């Protein structure tokens, strides 16, 4: 006869912990009044006062007073407020109740959102970490994941590129897969969304739970292996009507610290001069007098960089009355990028509404529309495509602007200077090429909740997500992002229009019951989810006029670049969970999910994902009470879990042998007539299934010194098997690979998190810190396959070794002189005095790259030995200060851009360090870069044979954010409270990393993403992460 799903599932959990047997109520209205105070007897506003087992509730006013009508004299009041321990009191005979609440210093009464429900922290058995909006407010970034850097144990968050709104890589417990996706599953208000959360307005978030172990994630079944991030958006607090405005603005800039130092014009001309002199050749006239380039440097990189403003406005309105609750968050963010012509703006709105139709029925309706517009130049990517990389290796003697001040079109020196490439003007590329993206997103949820009898809740939800994307690319005849294209060039355009629609229906029943000290909660339900996405790409080229970029303005429609695609998937699931505790001391949970997925072979559609977990609050035991004083341990809990979860990110149609029709890979021509071709383009695998991860977790939660120090430790070990992998097959079959479930990776790790209230007096100082050690090893691969190379052959994955290690030759300085050359192993026909010396690892006397006599070995790891984070908060009077830092240790990056920026054959500009190359026995330089003599035959080794010399330690500690706040203590009729703050984001990075400005980087060759799992840790000199300075104000009305 009761509904308890009134308050984000909060009461349900409270019930679980404190449930008392209450008899049948007598239906007679009784009025109860009173005052709720804190431990110092000061009235507490906004405290929830609810009648246990009913929907009836109210909140205290500003003085802490309340008045509530209860249905009978035997009713029990539940009094709860965040930050205080909840209490339950039978109503007093006289109807007057003055109750004081004790602060909840351990956070044990904290409600934690878990999959399909919530739990009080004390009763949890899984490994879950939570972040509340309060913890990360005032950090002026556009993405919530940027705010989370350094705050989560076991979660590595790297910002691989500084593009606004992009580039965050989130890996929970080091999870990896060979070819399936590794991003966690994001669940917003119970709705597993299809993408990531980069566009979500951080101000809409109330709290966030990261589910790490299998017991916590198993209810997400075939999608849970990469971990789950649950996000709860803002809800109105009962009885409160609030309005607040949060505005900040600032500027971003790119510090010189860490930038790649390239030669300036004079240095470059000097290099060129020496290049010819060393080779005994005539110096071209252009470089005979390097001093003539003094003060005529053209810093192409700097020309692309600017200071950029950043501003954000958020208005939050909440209202909660007895029958309805509404919260509205309206936001606008405008972030210009530090690269020219880069801008990101976001308009967002979220409205969450609930209505109590009766004591038994409650409905809710949430809607969150969003419009995002960005223009992001093609900054990142391999040599020849990304303009930042291109700018680095463009000759600094080439003018950015001509004598009239106009941007040059392209530059080329005479062939006699060994200028083999045209260098288009990259400033034009950034400014003139359009890369406009417009997204319209909408998430909507509706639910109905019904409580037919006491303890039973039935809830049905309908969720829908719509993503609409329009992308427009136009490269006019005057600009290109490709190297070696003369300008004017062919104008090109493409347009992408795509939509994705997901809907999800969930039907859940929850039954909560207690028998004496035995407390149960049983959850059961089924869900159906379906996705339909489609997109069309239209490509055209050869425009008659750059001002007319319409499709009809083009002379040619590019048939190969014009196509459409449809993608669909469906998932149907049943789930169940039983949670039990005895006296809140012995805890147990078993959970089960069964998923049916359209993505798998007809014979492998269904999978089962069970889990079990146990917990023991040791400190509740009598024997412990005796030692609590002497050990200073005020709380201790042990927990352990085991479960099976899956990863279904394998593409929608992988089991099928696809027949493709048309396109340049299949069509033929006869005479001058095109004949459409069709062929089977992949091998079928009807028994293809998801990847399976079996995870064990053991955790300890401790509180020490009267809860001043709280400590959590987790150990996990997981085995991911059935790895989805395109097993290479001999191409005599007509195919290159066969997608199969094969192999196994073992992951294990230790996570420590601590919160310490160092000072509690007038100056308050709190430190929270975490450190995580994640490891992995490849246990097995496909039969007959002992290694998998990364896409560019720069990485290797081998059985018995960690995943995706850097692979290459080992550098051993240079051949110092003829006798050194004579007595050392060499590359036949290529090694000379002064050229790079590599180690003959297999001892056959010859240095070989690839093939059967390969001398390559593992040269480093992109994975850190440990990652850590530390947050310090200080408060003194109205002032507060927070400092957030995070770091990583023991990981390396491959400084890949050096294959261009230190290319000794003299066709590109070079890093300054090349000045100290080997020039002669008398002038051997620093021994790092070798001789330029011998042309590509000699210098090509340094460039083309990846070796340990370009592996750099990328350990770092970064001060992410410093925020200083001041709470304005002025009583005003206009506002209740106000807060001013100043913040610096990306303050400083301490690192020995020498390869570029961002030790967190990881790049895909095409610049579209952080690199595949097999190819982590490549530094292609991506968009740098800027520092930003902001001022903000937060006003509550």
């Amino acid at each position, binding site marked *: 006869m009761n509904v308890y799903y009134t308050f984000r599932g909060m009461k349900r959990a409270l019930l679980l912990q404190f449930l008392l047997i209450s008899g049948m109520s007598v239906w007679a209205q009784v009025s109860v009044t009173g005052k709720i105070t804190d431990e110092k007897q000061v009235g507490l506003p906004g405290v929830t006062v609810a009648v246990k087992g009913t929907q009836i509730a109210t909140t205290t006013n500003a003085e802490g007073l309340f008045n509530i009508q209860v249905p009978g004299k035997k009713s029990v009041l539940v009094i709860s407020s965040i930050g205080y321990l909840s209490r339950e009191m039978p109503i007093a005979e006289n109807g007057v109740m003055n109750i004081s609440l004790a602060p909840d210093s351990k956070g044990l009464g904290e409600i934690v959102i878990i999959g399909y429900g919530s739990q009080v922290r004390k009763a949890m058995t899984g490994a879950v970490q939570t972040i509340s909006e309060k913890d990360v407010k005032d950090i002026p970034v556009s993405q919530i994941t940027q705010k989370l850097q350094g705050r989560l144990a076991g979660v590595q968050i790297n910002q691989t590129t500084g593009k606004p709104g992009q580039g965050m890589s989130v890996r929970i417990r080091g999870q990896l897969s060979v070819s399936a996706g590794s991003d966690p599953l994001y669940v917003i208000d119970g709705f597993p969304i299809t993408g990531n959360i980069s566009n979500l307005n951080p101000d809409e978030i109330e709290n966030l739970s990261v589910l790490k172990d299998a017991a916590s994630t198993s209810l997400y079944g075939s999608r849970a292996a990469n971990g789950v991030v649950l996000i709860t958006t803002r809800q109105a607090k009962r009885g409160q009507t609030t309005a607040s405005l949060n505005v900040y603005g600032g500027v971003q800039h790119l510090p010189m610290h860490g930038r790649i130092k390239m030669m300036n014009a004079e240095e470059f001309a000097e290099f060129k001069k020496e290049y010819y002199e060393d080779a005994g050749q005539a110096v071209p006239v252009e470089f005979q007098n390097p001093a003539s380039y003094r003060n005529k440097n053209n810093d192409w990189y700097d020309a692309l960089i600017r200071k950029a403003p950043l501003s954000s406005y958020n208005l939050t309105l909440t209202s909660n009355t007895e029958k309805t609750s509404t919260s509205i968050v309206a936001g606008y963010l405008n972030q210009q990028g530090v690269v020219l012509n880069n801008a990101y703006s976001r308009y967002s709105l979220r409205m969450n509404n609930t209505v109590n139709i009766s004591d038994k029925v409650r409905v809710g309706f949430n809607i969150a529309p969003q419009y995002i517009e960005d223009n992001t130049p093609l900054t990142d990517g391999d040599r020849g495509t990304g303009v930042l990389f291109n700018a680095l290796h463009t000759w600094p003697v080439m003018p950015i602007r001509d004598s009239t001040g106009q941007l040059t079109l392209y530059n080329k020196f005479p062939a006699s200077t060994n200028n083999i490439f045209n260098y288009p003007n990259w400033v034009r590329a950034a400014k003139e090429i359009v890369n406009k993206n417009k997204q319209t997103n909408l998430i909507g949820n509706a639910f109905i909740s019904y409580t037919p009898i006491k303890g039973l809740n039935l809830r049905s939800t309908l969720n829908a997500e719509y993503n609409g994307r329009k992308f427009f690319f136009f490269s006019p005849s005057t600009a290109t992002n490709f190297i070696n294209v003369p300008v004017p060039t062919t104008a090109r355009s493409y347009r992408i229009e795509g939509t994705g629609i997901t809907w999800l229906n969930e039907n859940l029943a929850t039954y909560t019951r207690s028998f004496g000290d035995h407390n149960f909660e049983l959850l059961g339900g*089924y869900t159906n989810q379906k996705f339909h996405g489609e997109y069309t790409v239209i490509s055209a080229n050869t425009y008659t006029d750059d001002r007319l970029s319409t499709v009809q303005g083009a002379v040619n429609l590019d048939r190969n670049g014009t196509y459409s695609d449809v993608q669909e998937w469906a998932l149907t699931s049943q789930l169940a969970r039983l949670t039990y505790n005895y006296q809140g001391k012995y805890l147990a949970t078993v959970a089960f999910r069964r998923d049916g997925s359209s993505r798998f072979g007809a014979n492998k*559609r269904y999978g089962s994902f069970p889990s079990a977990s146990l917990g023991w609050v040791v400190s509740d035991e009598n024997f412990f009470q005796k030692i609590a004083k002497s050990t200073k341990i005020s709380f201790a809990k042990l927990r352990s879990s085991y479960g099976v979860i899956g990863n279904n990110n394998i593409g929608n149609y992988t089991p099928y042998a696809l*027949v493709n029709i048309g396109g340049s890979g299949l069509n*033929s021509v006869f*005479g*001058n007539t095109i004949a459409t071709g069709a062929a089977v383009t992949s091998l079928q695998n009807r028994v293809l299934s998801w990847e399976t991860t079996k995870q064990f977790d053991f955790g300890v939660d401790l509180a020490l010194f009267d809860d001043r120090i709280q400590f959590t430790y987790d150990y996990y070990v997981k085995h991911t098997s059935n790895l989805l992998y395109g097993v290479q097959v001999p191409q005599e*079959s007509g195919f290159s690979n066969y997608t199969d479930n094969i192999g196994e990776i073992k992951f294990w790790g230790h996570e420590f998190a601590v919160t310490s209230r160092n000072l509690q007096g007038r100056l308050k100082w709190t430190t929270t810190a975490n450190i995580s050690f994640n490891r992995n090893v490849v246990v097995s691969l496909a039969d007959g396959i002992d290694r998998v190379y990364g896409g560019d052959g720069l990485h290797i994955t081998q059985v018995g070794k960690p995943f995706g290690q850097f692979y290459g030759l080992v550098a051993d300085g240079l051949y110092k002189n003829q006798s050194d050359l004579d007595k050392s192993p060499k590359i*036949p026909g290529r090694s000379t005095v002064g050229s790079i010396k590599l180690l003959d690892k297999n001892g056959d006397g010859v240095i070989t790259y690839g093939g059967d006599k390969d001398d390559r070995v593992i040269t480093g790891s992109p994975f850190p030995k440990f990652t850590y984070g530390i947050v310090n908060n200080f408060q003194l009077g109205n002032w507060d200060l927070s400092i957030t830092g995070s770091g990583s240790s023991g990981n390396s990056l491959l400084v890949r851009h050096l294959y261009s920026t230190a290319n000794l054959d003299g066709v590109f500009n070079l890093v300054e360090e090349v000045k100290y190359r080997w020039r002669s026995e008398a002038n051997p330089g620093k021994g790092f870069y070798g001789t330029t003599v011998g042309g590509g*035959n000699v210098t090509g080794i340094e460039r083309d044979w990846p070796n340990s010399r370009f592996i750099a330690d990328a350990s770092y500690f970064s001060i992410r954010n410093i925020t200083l706040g001041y709470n304005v203590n002025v009583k005003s009729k206009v506002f209740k409270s106000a807060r001013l703050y100043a913040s610096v984001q990306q303050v400083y990075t301490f690192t020995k990393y020498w390869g570029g400005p961002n030790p967190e980087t990881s790049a895909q060759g095409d610049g579209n993403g952080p690199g595949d799992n097999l190819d982590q840790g490549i530094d292609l000199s991506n968009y740098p992460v800027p520092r930003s300075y902001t001022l903000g104000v937060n006003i509550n009305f």
Partner: protein
Amino acid sequence: MKYRIILTILAAGCGLSGCHKFLDIQPQTSLTSETFFKTQGDFEQAVNATYNPLREIYNNQIFYTTEMHSDNAYYYRNPQFGATDGQENLADFAITVSNNVMTNGHVTQQYRDYYVIISRCNQVLSTIDAVDFDATVKNNLKGQALFMRAFSYFALERYFGSVPLHLTPVLTRQQAALPLSSPDSILLQVESDALAASKLLPNKAAQEPGRATSGAAKTLLADSYMEHHKWSDAEPVLKEVVSSNDYSLIPDYKNVFSGTTDNKNNAESVFEVQFLQGSDGLNGSLIYNMLPMPLSAAEIEPIVQVSNPQDLSGEGNNAPTPDLIAAYETGDKRKAATIGYVFSSGSANTNKTYPYCLKYAKPHAIWANTGNNVPAYRYAEVLLMLAEVLNEQGKGGEAIPYIDLVRTRAGLVGTAASSQTDLRAAILQERRVELAFECKRWFDLVRSNTFLTVITDYGNRIKADPEAYYYPPGAVPPNNAFSVVTARYPLPADEGSLSPYF
């Protein structure tokens, strides 16, 4: 017990059969092997796709692996430019071989491309009989698939000798690799397929231009017989081609080669690889790989005649050797139609005027986008094949008129050779100049078993005078040049690492 009923309804959920439909999602952008291969149109498209990989092979690779791998063509050395080992090693016979496999990327890619054709043919041939449609159309389609399979296996045998023989589609991972079959058994399969194709295919007049014909199948069949030294088997087959009157020599040699859109599949063409200029991705760019580098836009403009000529940098390929140029007799009209000259102002060489191959230098509209076809078999070769077949059987007198047909067209007098040995040499020489840059020379040297002496002498000439072979002053061939002169390529190492059989 109202709630029990509700729970029952909830629990029933989606366990019922309706969910199977919910989960049964077929791809909408692609068909699958179960939904395709059902109609005549499906098979027409599947056969069209068998020709597709030929474009990749004939646009560059085959010139590296055959013509530059002979004494006809070398590379235009540009020492400032790296990453050209792949081509250079083929031209100077220095490919890396270990454990009887090799790593050259061009050879590997060609191996794979031929097997893509074979796999597509096998898919057609294994399913077409089960589908009922017009018998004439079906025969034509089967004939084309058999021809393409035979064409591919013939090439594989000539490149590698023993290779895996796939005749049915691969359906499982285990079927992907097969043991090697001997050169004899590969050639027998080629002959069986080509013979069947010659009976199923229409003649040139009845076939859509550019597709395989009965004449092409017979020429391929005879070529395989010749490779097999089955001279007497080849003779009647070639005579059928000659007497069919489907083909004739084009009077002026320089008009033999296809233009960008015109003169394709002409009277002399037996089988040629088809290209289409434009943005459909069916274009070629061969001429851009047949020029010395660097070349300025002004220097290249007369050759390609596009409206927006651009500079070319890097290292050029397919340089006609001085040996080839010297092989033309005085008065041979074919020399001027085959060899052109271009000046490279950016060259580091003393002599900045270079020869280049003219056969594929056709005016076209779009930079690096050509539409001219590349011949695989043409009638002049059929005549020389027939001459060779006759001479090898001791019928030299019968062979001479066929040689002279070719010579006369070139503006030369009849051959002076008469003994079998002299005629053998004369036919080899005639093939060299008639079919220069048509990817025949290397296989001729192997078939005639002269490759070792010819290439060794040729290598010695290059080492003795690198500048004559387009090396800039001071540059020399690598020290392992001309160290690996073998009749067949070793199999690709990348394939060997995946196959248990080699």
